[in-house]
């Protein structure tokens, strides 16, 4: 890439980011992706070896994501009757289904223990009831795990979609076709979430604790 092109790119990027922030406040991954597409579209076909290298790298990145997904989806289960799963959403649903089954099995066992313990009386029975409640509380994991997985899959799908669009803009169709000739057989559905507030569970270091939520809620006039 020439220094003029670099300067032009840098200027475009900075201006676009500033405009976007003024417009929207927070900038999401989707916003950045759309911005890069717009900028990429303003450049012509690759003229230098560096530009051609960049285009090839993007094509390789697209293939890498496709291969990684194929690897994840090919992880076998013990059930030989399950059809091969190549769709991201379907695979995700299988994961959720299996963890849900396992969680329900755990809770069935806890119920059985509680029923067997009924009538034991005294401190022993209370200890068993308390332990049973802790197991039920721990089973919260299944819901939160499912939401985290959905979030990761959605992020990967968004990245892949942006890479594909960049490849189209750069006219990389031949290179992409060559790189992906044995990668995917089905469409990976990309769900665009229009509801800005539905983000799912946050990372441990970033999530608000119940105490943080309570303080904010109280400041809004809520009762603790």
């Amino acid at each position: 890439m020439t220094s003029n092109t670099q300067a032009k790119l840098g200027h475009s990027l900075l201006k676009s980011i500033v405009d976007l922030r003024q417009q929207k406040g927070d900038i999401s991954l989707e916003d950045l992706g759309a911005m890069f597409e717009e900028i990429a579209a303003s450049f012509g076909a690759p003229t230098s070896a560096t530009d051609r290298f960049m285009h090839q790298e993007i094509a390789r990145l697209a293939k890498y994501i496709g291969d990684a997904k194929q690897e994840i989806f090919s992880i076998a289960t013990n059930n030989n009757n399950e059809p091969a799963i190549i769709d991201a959403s379907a695979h995700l649903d299988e994961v959720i289904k299996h963890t849900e089954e396992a969680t329900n099995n755990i809770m069935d066992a806890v119920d059985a223990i509680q029923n067997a313990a009924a009538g034991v009386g005294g401190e022993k029975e209370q200890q068993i009831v308390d332990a049973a409640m802790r197991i039920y509380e721990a089973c919260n994991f299944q819901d939160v795990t499912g939401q985290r997985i959905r979030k990761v899959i959605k992020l990967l799908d968004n990245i892949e979609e942006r890479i594909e669009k960049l490849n189209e803009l750069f006219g990389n169709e031949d290179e992409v076709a060559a790189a992906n000739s044995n990668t995917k057989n089905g469409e990976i559905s990309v769900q665009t979430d229009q509801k800005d507030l539905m983000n799912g569970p946050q990372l441990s270091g970033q999530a608000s604790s119940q105490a943080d939520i309570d303080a904010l809620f109280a400041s809004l006039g809520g009762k603790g």
Partner: protein
Amino acid sequence: MAVDKAMPILVVDDYNTMRRIVRNLLKQLGFDNTDEAADGTEALKKLKEKKFSLIVSDWNMEPMSGMDLLKLVRADEQLKSIPFIMITAESKPENVIAAKQAGVSNYIVKPFNAETLKTKMTSVIGEF
């Protein structure tokens, strides 16, 4: 006034496992008269058919989210005064603010424990 532990409570969540967990924890707290719905649409239908004294709902559900359900409940003359507790993984401040502005009675983040559920219920329906 003493809390009637036979009060009917509607538990709304798209995960069957989570509905079971919440109902079980409510049972441990002494509330055994619970019903459930898998999303806001089903919940609204049940709310129209039967009287409930408390709604405990998730946020992220399809086709109708817990937030949409909350707004519809608060907009309905017959349902608007039913206490509504949101139990959700959405923990950003803007979520809490949006829910409070929509009229939520209290807000619990997942994962949660029975102690938190009891505290939040107490603040909404009274000591039990």
